[in-house]
């Protein structure tokens, strides 16, 4: 590789700009002081308070229900959507249309979904948040799986049929396994997006079941407490773990 020379300077400045806030946040989450901006000593106190905070615990459970549920549903539907588009509709227009929910502004999607739920008379709650997350999650999964389908040899399925497998058996034994890296990557993407999604959840959630981002938002309105730092650090840990394992997994399944 070529040496960067003086270009190292802007490189490291960019890294500093990106990661200093995160670093500060993680360090401050171990601060003993009650005010979030002055360091007085190391303590795990805020992590303890976090665990005993009912509102946050309930918010975390709600978020996990939405994230896991939306991931499962969006992955299944998104994969089928991608296969359907790839196999039956070779139309760029339809493809673009299916991927729209992933790129339109959250606010537009949120208001649209809220209007839709009101129209059909559904009471708002976790189930509506879950459905809303499925809408954009599905588009992300479909985008990732479609990209993979572009590189997949279409004769694989024909070979399976030729060797005596029926259509269902071929789908389960050949189609799904050969798309697995993309399916897993898509699922993890949906999970991490859903985990900290605020705008859409804020609009489509009922008052009794706030998700974690909504809980945090209502806490921060009265000022940032060190507890929030601890919570953010934990969320960061979850996101990093998921993304890194996703990358590892994709590379692993690609190499086999």
């Amino acid at each position, binding site marked *: 590789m070529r040496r960067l020379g003086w270009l190292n300077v802007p490189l490291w400045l960019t890294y500093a700009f990106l990661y200093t806030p995160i670093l500060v946040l993680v360090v401050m989450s171990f601060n003993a002081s009650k005010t979030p901006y002055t360091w007085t000593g190391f303590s795990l106190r805020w992590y303890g308070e976090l665990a005993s905070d009912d509102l946050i615990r309930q918010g975390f459970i709600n978020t996990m229900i939405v994230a896991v549920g939306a991931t499962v549903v969006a992955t299944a539907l998104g994969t089928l959507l991608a296969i359907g588009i790839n196999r039956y509709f070779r139309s760029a227009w339809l493809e673009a249309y299916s991927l729209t929910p992933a790129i339109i502004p959250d606010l537009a999607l949120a208001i649209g979904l809220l209007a839709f739920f009101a129209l059909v008379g559904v009471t708002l709650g976790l189930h509506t948040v879950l459905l809303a997350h499925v809408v954009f999650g599905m588009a992300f999964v479909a985008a990732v799986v479609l990209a993979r389908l572009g590189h997949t040899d279409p004769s694989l399925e024909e070979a399976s*049929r030729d060797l005596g497998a029926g259509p269902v058996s071929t789908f389960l034994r050949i189609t799904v396994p050969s798309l697995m890296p993309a399916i897993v990557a898509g699922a993890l993407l949906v999970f991490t997006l859903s985990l900290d999604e605020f705008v859409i959840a804020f609009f489509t959630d009922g008052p009794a079941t706030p998700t974690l981002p909504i809980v945090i938002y209502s806490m921060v309105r009265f000022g940032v407490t060190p507890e929030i730092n601890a919570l953010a650090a934990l969320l960061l840990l979850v996101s990093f773990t998921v993304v890194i394992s996703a990358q590892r997994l994709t590379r692993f399944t690609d190499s086999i």
Partner: protein
Amino acid sequence: MTDLRPPILRLTGLSKRFGETVALDDVSLDIAQNEFFALLGPSGCGKTTLLRSIAGFEDPDTGEMAMPSDTGDINLATLPPERRPINLMFQSYALFPHMSVERNVAYGLERERLPKTEVRQRVGQVLETVGLTGKAKARPAQLSGGQRQRVALARAIVKRPRMLLLDEPLSALDRKVRAEMQLELKRLQHEVGITFVVVTHDQEEAMSMADRIAVMSNGRVEQVDSPIDLYERPRTIFVADFIGSSNAFEGTLTGRGVHVAGLGDLPGHRPWPVATDDSTLIVRPEDIRLTAPQDSLLDGTVLDIQFFGGSSTLAVSVDQHPAPVLVTTHGAAPVSRGDRVHLSWAPERAVVLGRTA
């Protein structure tokens, strides 16, 4: 001779269009038991569509595909691909990337719900046949092109199909491996006793491997014959032109050959009936001799000489004839560029064909 063997597959009047394109145009063929059959033609001639129709991945618009058997004919059109007693080796090989070599080969047998011990034994056997026993646990991505082709072949023949279809089996291999695999395919076909149908655009490949060849063009079968007959007695100008190189002289039919304006009477024989007055005389370069002036049929000037070691090819410019006449001689040519030469051939080595045939 080959026609006396019982047919294993009888195709009658197959036609298929894709929109405006005619992929198959009234194709009728008999493929005999245990023969090595080749479908040969330029790309877009319909050979792959024909192969995919037999395998079950295309539905012909009209026509019948029947496999005669002891219990009456099997009508292939009524069976989905997975139920046909035929296997296809794909051009891309289509090995399952998420399975080892062993699991790829076992896949077809497992779908037949055979007992595990039998599957293991047959997989072991077939891997030995193709010489890949040591690679049983490898993934397709870890194999060379030639090895992948062997896996694809093993995966197809382990099912013991009545017929094996091979779609451009050697096109993905480099030259040296290709020559090896040609011999290997012939050996395997002998050894396993399965009827092979190979699709190829490479005439040398077809000539060297096949017992019989069907030459296709624009969705139609031009001629079905043994390689030698195809070469020596082409039925149409397309076949003469596609198989090997040839010199063509267009003119009108005479009793002894063809009369060509400006060149005079050129002698030839008629292996097939010629219905039209317009006709073409075909002579292979190796059938033309350099001769003394008094025996000359054509006179010309040497334009170019290519020396290939065992033989040389002369390009001779003949007055009043648009294309240079190609002449192949043994060893080095006894003439040099610019020399005046006299050409002749034995009438039985030249073929007269109808222009519209």
